[in-house]
């Protein structure tokens, strides 16, 4: 059989709460330390213990890190999903199982290889106590995989030491468990398998980080001082990350007091209210949430839009509608976020595609929110937010100065003849604002009810419309300030692929694969809303455009139709919305189906 070095995918099936995620993380990290590009997707249930959970690891020497739905090896440790797992191994692939119990002989496939390792038996013999036995069974399969895939044992040992160095008992158990798995395989089986690893140097300038941690770092670096939140999967770890970073980096060196305030609100309505209050008072403030939270924040988002108050909201999208599948990914809030709230509204949105962009766009979101005095929504998703991605190291430009927008300070107010909050002084649609507690001349009355350009209450038609019109101009002008689309390709292909967010990796891979097959395509990933002229231009320049996205109704396509004015029929749609990340195969199938060449 062909060797497949540094190019394969494995999947580990277990149950929630058994500790398998330590083992999975260990494997991922070991491969990464071997210098080989790798990604992991954690498919966990919306409960705490006992339901099926999977972990997918894709190794790809070329750096393609999108999810692939084809698995060379599956570690099937969950009896409840065993049949389904067996079915998912590619023909000619391998299935690792715990041979402590015999395989159900009637349900076996003949085109795959079964690898039995007596995980439970070995661990029961080596460890005492139910907990430890269960936990170490997982570590033992990591050892087994180490031998089967040729994971560098030095790396494994080093990692275990780093992790448990300060807990000698744990360290010992872990090392024993790894050895159990490793040695059993080495002694009893032919290894490594034809799918195997070989050291590279492709990850030296990279990190393995999840998008929520990266976004939290972005908030830290942007100088956010107030965070308000209500726990919700998959957004929770943004605030948990931010809290951790603040505890480390935001203590007053003398008093050890906090230079930040994090409020766990009673719900999402309160969380966004707090962000609005804090931003109004002059802090950089943000709240992380998911779809249900955005729905609940709708009324307040309209207030912030109309009263022109900055607010940064992270929407880590999950599968909706309603509670949906809270632990599965989707891009189902694109329309809601763009136009949230009753009346005429439009919100600036940013669309990171990976943790690195989550970091960068977190920073950008505050600049835009303060510059345009309006909510900015950063739409990531569960895949970006909660999975570890390999991305280039984050960098920081120390010359960065926050763009606080048009805020008048005490001296400016003192010097000013007059101050009117909603006056378009500069003709760019952006008025000046003042902060409470700064200067008597800065005072004005913020309200979501009708107001004129001087900030006074009004029910006069013309005065009311004047302000609304200016706000439309203002928000639309942000199109030139949101991150420009990511483009790739000659620009001359007949076919254009358009996407957003975490579909990026799958699209790039599909593009490369199709190029190999002789089908050249151009590529654009939108990164901000409202769209700039370049977005329309890209569509216009291609005979056929495919919009790739993860929702049922083609929401990105809808936004493109509404905002660029291109005809609907100019945009074909490729949609995946069952909770799994996009794969290159999904993209290619979609494109090729329309080329009369079914993939």
């Amino acid at each position: 059989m062909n060797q497949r070095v540094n190019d394969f995918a494995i999947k580990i099936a277990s149950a929630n709460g058994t500790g398998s995620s330590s083992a999975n993380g260990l494997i991922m990290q070991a491969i990464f330390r071997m210098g080989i590009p790798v990604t992991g997707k954690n498919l966990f249930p919306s409960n705490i213990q006992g339901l099926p959970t999977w972990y997918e690891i894709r190794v790809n020497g070329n750096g393609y890190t999108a999810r692939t739905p084809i698995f060379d090896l599956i570690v099937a440790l969950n009896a409840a999903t065993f049949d389904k797992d067996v079915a998912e191994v590619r023909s000619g692939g391998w299935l690792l199982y715990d041979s402590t119990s015999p395989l159900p002989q009637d349900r076996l496939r003949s085109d795959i290889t079964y690898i039995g390792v007596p995980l439970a038996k070995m661990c029961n013999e080596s460890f005492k106590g139910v907990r430890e036995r269960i936990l170490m069974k997982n570590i033992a399969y990591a050892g087994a995989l180490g031998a089967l895939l040729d994971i560098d044992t030095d790396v494994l040992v080093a990692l275990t030491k780093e992790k448990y160095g300060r807990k000698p008992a744990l360290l010992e158990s872990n090392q024993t468990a790894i050895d159990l798995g490793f040695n059993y395989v080495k002694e009893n089986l032919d290894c490594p398998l034809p799918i195997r690893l070989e050291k590279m140097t492709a990850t030296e300038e990279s990190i393995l980080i999840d998008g929520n941690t990266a976004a939290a770092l972005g908030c830290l670096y942007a100088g956010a001082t107030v965070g308000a939140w209500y726990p919700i999967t998959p957004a929770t770890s943004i605030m948990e990350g931010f809290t951790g970073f603040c505890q480390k980096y935001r203590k007053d060196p003398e008093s050890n007091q906090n230079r930040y305030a994090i409020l766990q609100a009673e719900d999402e309505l309160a969380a966004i209210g707090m962000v609005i209050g804090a931003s109004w008072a002059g802090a950089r403030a943000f709240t992380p949430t998911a779809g249900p939270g955005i729905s609940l924040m709708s009324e307040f988002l309209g207030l912030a839009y109309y009263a022109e108050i900055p607010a940064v909201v992270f929407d880590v999208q999950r599968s909706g509608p309603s509670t949906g599948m809270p632990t599965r990914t989707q891009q189902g809030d694109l329309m809601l976020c763009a136009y949230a709230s009753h009346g005429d509204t439009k919100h600036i949105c940013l669309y990171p595609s990976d943790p690195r962009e989550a970091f960068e766009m977190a920073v950008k979101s505050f600049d835009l929110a303060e510059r345009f005095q309006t909510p900015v929504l950063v739409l990531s998703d569960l895949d970006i937010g909660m999975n570890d991605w390999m991305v280039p190291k984050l960098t920081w430009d120390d010359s960065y100065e926050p763009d606080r927008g048009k805020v008048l300070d005490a001296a400016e107010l003192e010097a000013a003849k007059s101050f009117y909050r909603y006056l378009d002084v500069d003709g760019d649609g952006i008025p000046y604002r003042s902060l409470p507690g700064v200067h008597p001349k800065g005072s004005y009355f913020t309200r979501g009810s009708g107001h004129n350009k001087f900030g006074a209450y009004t029910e006069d038609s013309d005065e009311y419309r004047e302000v609304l019109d200016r706000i439309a101009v203002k928000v639309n002008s942000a199109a030139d300030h949101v991150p420009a689309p990511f483009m790739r390709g000659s620009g001359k292909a007949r076919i254009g692929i358009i996407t957003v967010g975490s579909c990026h990796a799958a699209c790039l891979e599909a593009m490369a694969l199709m190029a190999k097959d002789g089908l050249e395509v151009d590529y654009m990933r939108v990164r901000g809303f409202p769209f700039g002229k370049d977005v329309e231009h890209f569509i216009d320049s291609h005979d056929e455009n495919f919009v790739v996205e993860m929702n049922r109704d083609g929401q990105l396509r809808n936004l493109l139709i509404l905002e660029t004015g291109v005809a609907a029929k100019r945009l074909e749609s490729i949609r995946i919305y069952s909770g799994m990340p996009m794969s290159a195969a999904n993209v290619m199938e979609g494109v090729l189906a329309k080329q009369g060449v079914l993939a």
Partner: protein
Amino acid sequence: MSFIAKPKVHHPALQRNEIGLTRRDYEGAITTLCAGCGHDSITAAIIQAFWQLSIEPYRVAKLSGIGCSSKTPAYFLREAHGFNSVHGRMPAVASGAGAANRELMLIGVSGDGDSLSIGLGQLCHAIRRNLNLTYVLENNGVYGLTKGQFSASTDVGSTNKRGEPNTMQSIDSVLLALSLGATFVARSFSGDKQQLVPILEAALKHKGFAFIDVISPCVTFNDHEGSTKSYAYTRKHQLEVVQADFVPLREEITAEYEPGTEHRVVMHDGSTVRLRKVEEDYDPTDRDRAYAYIRESQTKGEIVTGLLYVSEDSREMHEQLGSIPQSLTKVPYRDLCPGSAELEKLQARFR
């Protein structure tokens, strides 16, 4: 030409306070509430309290939700920033503003609809947080701005303008606040400026959440049972036209009385409210006795007023959070950003 006489704030000789300001400097826009509305009297008391405390108006932030009551921050302290937010959600906005800038002096004004129905959860959680905010609930037992529906503070048996009685028990905001562990709880009456002003002053000085429920008659829509008796003629006329849109001109109700005494106040429609001011030797530092006392009076049909409870060891939100004493908005950016070298370093974790 003006059709309706508005409550005037008097300026006896334009007296100046310690920082040289007159009461006029603490005023705001002209009220657009109904003549005689209790809320306007509270506005006057707020003006008086700030003036007496010699607070610089611009250091104050005044917040509210939506309702007639919630409009009033526009009518005092024109040099302070105001924020008329959304219905029932002022506590969240105030919490955010307070989190960002603890040097601001925060005053929030709300109504019984705003606080006890749509905003009940937020009110309770602001109490729990012990946000450093003076919270004035202008309680008229009715939805004024939406024209006379029952609110959660409407008493059982009280009737609406069509004469239908309320059957649901009312929420007593003061009992609620006490049961939640509020650190400052008071009740007063819009017409008793003599009582209200010092309570407001104490509240503004309290470190933590200072809750003041102020009974504040709605001249237009409150219409209690029994009111037909003495004003039969008026009512007969009023019924039809109120539905049209006539709002009668009314004098504001005032009542000043001595501590320890009970006082009957006749409302605009002839109904009576019995107010009892706590005795001078009342111990406002015992939360549980305060609760028991209020409950007892309630069963006697009396409404206890005064500063009912104040905790002597209130720890406001920022103390709990361990924040720096300054406003977070004053921390220079260079003290907030760890910089590129640290970013490089901390990423070791992600390898």
